[in-house]
């Protein structure tokens, strides 16, 4: 493991690698700061640039993007009350009041430092789990993989919050899309409708570019206006006070990072839940604060920011170990790994530890780099959010379509990206989760393959799924995850009834 870590550091130490990391971090900061874009769009857009790269170079670029996005998002959350990405929403509660009190610099300093430290803690957790991951992965045979994929899909569907039905439908439709094309087990081409374009299946990269990059542009075009209407003439000072406040409130940062890592590791739950849980826990832990939460308490910035950056390391745990992405960003990142011939799981953890550690080092350095950039350029970053959508839409759309084409230099891929852009737009419009859809497309073939392998092993006996302890355990987790919204609703009803009774 130590050699792999050294190799990771060596991979990152060349000027070319550092340039890639800086470019990735810059794009991540930019896309994180501009509301409506986000890290997933950035990763999807950058995929075509990695085609000619070595796998570790692609990993460095993507690591830079992933680690920097939420740090960038915190700037617009604090200065403009507009979260760059969803996980930064909790930062607005206290970040914006601080900015209104003339303490924007302090809030940015605290947010950026908490982000960097949270990111590093998340990555350290990932490193700590790697040796255990190998042992766990070995416990998984086809039935367990099948149940894990089903659990992952259900957990992601449930994470759609109050849209469980829509989440489940989206997961199933995503699986169906994943079935299109050549099926290795029986060497049959299915659901291609005679179109050569579909013979090899739906190509992941054009589909992702359409779903996340172009659909966002269509959505912005339909919504119109400029991205942020708020004024950005906020004075940025007292940044060092913010940096110091994180060290003063270290326990808040540690607890937030713990939440981020743990919640990030659950597929689909993601940074938003981690940030909000971290914020609310902090508020509960501190019943009589000096400054009320929601009115400019610096701990209200530290808690969510450390959580939403720590989740990057956490969400990579299921992605690298099982190929089950922990978030939309990691789903697209998984596409990058597959594109470069890297298969997540035991093989990756044993044969390509250098790549895993290259990612670990890239995430760590990028988290720190992004923080330094934010501390230095916060004021100018706020101006980015003033860019008119009419400048962003044509440029991003064209670059996205060129990117979709570049992978196989097939014009059909542009059509795929175009079709998925509309699917993505309608999913935004009718509030169906695109993350679930993406993860289901990625998992479609793995799920079916594990299912068939299980049936082959068991001689077509379904009992294989409920006679192995790990498979049963995952089945119970699946049922529990599906029952969770009902349990939560019942508890809420009981609490309300109790409160009304006591009145």
């Amino acid at each position, binding site marked *: 493991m130590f050699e792999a870590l050294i190799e990771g550091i060596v991979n990152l130490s060349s000027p070319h690698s550092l340039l890639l990391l800086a470019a990735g971090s810059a794009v991540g900061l930019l896309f994180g700061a501009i509301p409506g874009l986000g890290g997933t769009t950035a990763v999807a857009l950058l995929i075509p640039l990695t085609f000619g790269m070595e796998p570790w170079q692609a990993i460095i670029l993507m690591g830079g993007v992933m680690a920097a996005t939420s740090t960038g998002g915190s700037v617009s959350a604090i200065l403009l009350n507009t979260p760059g990405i969803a996980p930064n929403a909790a930062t607005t509660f206290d970040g914006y009041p601080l900015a209104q009190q003339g303490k924007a610099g302090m809030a940015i300093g605290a947010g950026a430092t908490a982000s960097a430290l949270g990111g590093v803690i998340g990555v350290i957790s990932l490193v700590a789990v790697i040796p255990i991951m190998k042992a766990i992965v070995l416990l998984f045979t086809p039935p367990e993989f099948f149940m894990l994929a089903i659990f992952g899909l259900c957990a992601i569907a449930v994470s759609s919050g109050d849209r469980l039905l829509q989440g*489940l439908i989206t997961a199933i439709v995503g699986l169906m899309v994943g079935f299109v094309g050549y099926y290795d087990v029986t060497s049959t081409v299915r659901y291609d409708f005679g179109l050569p374009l579909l013979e090899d299946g739906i190509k992941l990269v054009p589909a992702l570019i359409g779903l996340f990059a172009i659909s966002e542009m269509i959505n912005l075009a339909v919504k119109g206006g400029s991205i942020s209407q708020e004024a950005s003439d906020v004075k940025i000072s007292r940044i060092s006070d913010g940096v110091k406040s994180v060290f003063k409130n270290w326990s808040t940062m540690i607890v937030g990072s713990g939440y981020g890592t743990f919640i990030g590791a659950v597929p689909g739950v993601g940074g938003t839940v981690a940030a909000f849980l971290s914020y609310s826990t902090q508020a509960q832990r501190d019943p009589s604060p000096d400054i009320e939460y929601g009115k400019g308490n610096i701990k209200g910035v530290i808690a969510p920011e450390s959580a939403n950056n720590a989740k990057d390391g956490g969400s990579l745990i299921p992605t690298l170990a099982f190929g089950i992405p922990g978030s939309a960003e990691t789903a697209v990142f998984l596409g990058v790994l597959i594109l470069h011939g890297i298969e997540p799981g035991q093989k990756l953890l044993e044969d390509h530890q250098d790549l895993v550690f290259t990612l670990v080092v890239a995430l760590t350095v990028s988290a720190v780099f992004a923080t330094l950039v934010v501390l230095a350029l916060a004021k100018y970053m706020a101006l980015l959010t003033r860019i008119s959508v*009419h400048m962003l839409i044509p440029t991003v*759309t064209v670059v996205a379509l*060129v990117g979709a084409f570049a992978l196989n*230099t097939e*014009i059909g891929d542009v059509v795929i990206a175009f079709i998925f852009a509309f699917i993505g737009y309608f999913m935004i419009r009718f509030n169906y989760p695109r993350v679930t859809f993406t993860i289901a497309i990625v998992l479609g073939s793995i799920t079916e393959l594990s299912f068939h392998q299980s049936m082959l092993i068991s001689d077509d006996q379904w009992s294989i799924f409920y006679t192995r302890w790990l498979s049963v355990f995952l089945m119970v987790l699946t049922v529990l995850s599906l029952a969770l919204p009902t349990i939560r609703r019942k508890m809420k009803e009981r609490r309300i009834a109790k409160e009304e009774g006591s009145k």
Partner: protein
Amino acid sequence: MKIPEHRRASAYYILFTLAFVILFIVTSYQYKLTDRMFPLLVGYVALPLLILDLLALTDSKIGEKISIFFSAKTPEQVDEDADKTERTMAKELTIFAWMGALVLGIYLVGFLPCTPIFVYCWMKYRGGYSIRESCYLSIATTAFVYILFELILQYELYPGIFLYWYG
């Protein structure tokens, strides 16, 4: 059991998805048992879920019960929390037409002629920018695409079907 006017668009979306699922199921039967077993399993799970989703949109007791069961909210609360952005069909169709024209243009004449034309027209006619500003961004975008993809990454950008025809 009626679907209120403001939820009709969602209903059409569900019906479209339902049609896709039915097509998927029907198509599955043309394959051998091994090839269709798992897809069919998945397809048949989707049908009742879609029907429940459709029922949840109706103005009825059952619609309310389904909505509360799956989302802990009444249909009215779901309406309240929904994205309130005004999306007129005319506006959506206009944007779709712009995007469609871009893809068609790329298919016919390729990326390099289409990029400046699309960026210029969008800036000028949708964004209301001056000719000069529109020109600047269109040239900058084209230069970015050309330098990055053609020169640095050495991809041969699609030249359009017309150029293919003319050899």
